């Protein structure tokens, strides 16, 4: 039984109807023991009633020595809902690939139960383990307990954000590089920048092991690292036959859906013109037992993705078509590239300008020259169909004067 009077929430109660899971139901369970969550439900009910949000930014909050990791939230109706007068969010740097031991999860939950609302978001779109709702006074005690258990805060604000990755080689046969190792390595490399902001503005790294891009790095990160291969798709023709024998219409479901028409099925075997393959992954996803990524694997580095804030949303575009993600070399080639990009952005970026916006403003050619990357056909948007791009053979001498 609750020691406090539970809020009436007739509008929110509607959200508990239907076959899907309900966050209202979860929150009501916690509200019995946590007055903060009880007031949260009350404020949310008011928002549904008035169709107005009741959160405000309020004062800056954080922990000493760190620039990011905490997001201040305050109620604009603290008299009505005193237990959510402060409702700050804490971002905890997640383990690569979101693998936890059950003990680690218990540790996190125990800390949060003692010092916060008890509600978590596993995980936020940034990738972090997100603790939802605490007061300013609890921030330092939470931070002390987290670090005691070897956890650390993630990034927030105008800062390097917590890098995140798919679970790559841990669970997926498509992974073309060790995403979890790279993600951990880069997180440690930029640990200072993550906690003591030194970048001009937000910066997000995301690592996907293959072109399926399960962490949606192309849309959500300034620097997307997407696994790929540069040799040929591996084909097991016996497995192709097995798919056909099992009733798969390989022409209709696979080869004719190839966006570059680089493959054909002759009724017995699949043939791929690998030079034309654009790594859409459809065929491999459709016939995983018959088709696999090549053996010469690495990653494509793309730059400039972001959600709409100042300019519109941008998808990352290709910067380096292929880079070996070399663990033995501590990913030095990637880090060197990153340093050159950072130097350029620091020198030429304007206030609150993401790298994608900066590149659009200065022009890709100038950007490439500054970071010492040679222009390549892959830098061209839709190179196969772009009428403004000409290849050398177009200008081959035909014996007449132009």
């Amino acid at each position, binding site marked *: 039984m609750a020691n406090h009077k539970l809020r009436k929430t007739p509008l929110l109660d509607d959200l508990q109807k239907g076959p899907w899971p309900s966050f209202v139901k979860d929150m009501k369970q916690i509200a019995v023991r946590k007055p903060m969550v009880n007031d949260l439900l009350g404020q949310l009910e008011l928002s549904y009633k008035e169709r107005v949000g009741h959160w405000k930014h309020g004062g800056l*909050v954080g922990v*000493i020595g760190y*620039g990011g990791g905490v997001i201040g939230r305050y109620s604009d109706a603290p008299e009505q809902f005193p237990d959510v007068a402060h409702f700050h969010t804490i971002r905890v740097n997640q383990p690569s690939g979101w693998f936890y031991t059950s003990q680690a999860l218990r540790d996190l939950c125990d800390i949060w139960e003692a010092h916060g609302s008890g509600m978590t978001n596993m995980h936020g779109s940034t990738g972090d383990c997100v603790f939802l709702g605490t007061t300013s006074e609890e921030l330092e005690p939470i931070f002390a307990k987290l670090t005691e258990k070897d956890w650390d805060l993630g990034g927030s*604000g*105008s800062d390097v954000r917590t890098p995140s990755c798919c679970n790559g080689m841990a669970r997926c046969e498509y992974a073309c590089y060790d995403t979890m190792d790279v993600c951990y390595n880069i997180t440690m490399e930029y640990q*200072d920048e993550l906690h*003591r902001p030194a970048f001009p503005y937000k910066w997000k790294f995301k690592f996907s092991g293959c072109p399926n891009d399960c962490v949606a790095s192309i849309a959500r990160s300034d620097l997307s690292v997407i696994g790929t291969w540069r040799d040929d798709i591996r084909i097991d023709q016996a497995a192709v036959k097995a798919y056909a024998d099992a009733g798969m219409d390989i022409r209709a479901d696979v080869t004719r859906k190839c966006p570059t028409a680089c493959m054909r099925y002759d009724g017995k075997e699949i043939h791929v013109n690998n030079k034309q393959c654009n790594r859409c992954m459809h065929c491999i996803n459709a016939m995983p037992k018959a088709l696999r990524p090549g053996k010469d694997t690495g990653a494509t580095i793309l730059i400039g993705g972001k959600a709409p804030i100042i300019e519109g949303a941008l998808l990352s575009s290709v910067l380096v078509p292929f880079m070996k993600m070399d663990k033995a070399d501590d990913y030095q080639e990637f880090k060197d590239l990153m340093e050159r990009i950072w130097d350029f952005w620091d020198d030429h970026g304007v206030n609150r300008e993401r790298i994608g916006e900066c590149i659009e403003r200065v022009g890709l050619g100038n950007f490439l020259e500054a970071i010492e990357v040679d222009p390549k056909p892959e830098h061209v948007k839709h190179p196969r169909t772009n009428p403004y791009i000409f290849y050398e053979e177009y200008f081959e001498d035909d014996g007449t004067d132009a």
Partner: protein
Amino acid sequence: MKGSRQAIAELLRARKYPEVLVTFGAHRKTVRSLRSLLYAEEALVKWRAVSMFGWLAAERADLIAHEVDRLIWSLNDEAGSIGRGAAECLGEIGRKNIGLVQHGVDVVIHYIEDPETCRPPNRNTEILLGVLWALGRLGGGKPMRVQKVMPVLLSFTEDPEPAVRGHAAWSLGQIGGPEAKDRLNRLTQDAGVTLLYENDELNEKAVAAIAQEALAHLNR
């Protein structure tokens, strides 16, 4: 960058501002390290980074002109304490080269006028102390720059936190004016204590001593 940051911190502890540029180069990469030192746990290093920004404003304004917008924005960044040290830097830069921070003065003033950010229960006291200190630096010798915020500044001499009263007293001592003297007189018996950065040093000081020194300075 970690190595250079630690080495720069060492130079700042020794107040060797020119040597920072000599050792690490007069370019924005060095300013980048300096920027991150505003979040240093060691308070003296943070404050010396503020002083170094002021030194750069006087000696190499070209290196930090681009930083001012970022500092202004960071005072309104909703995430964490990204704004740590920003007001102090704006104040110090403005003291040395007001042309660099014309817009920044209004932002600092607005910050302290906003009860959401400067009054309990939501305020961040460390940021508030920085803003009070910045107003002192901006208004010192040029009281007109901060004149419009004087009523608010005076009110902080009655704040429950001694650190806030102490910084308000120090700031009033820099800016001056008859109302300032009146308020400072009321604080000459204040037993509260605060850490205060002045003349490039960080020392624990009694609020009463700050008020007395401020009065002596204004009566000189």
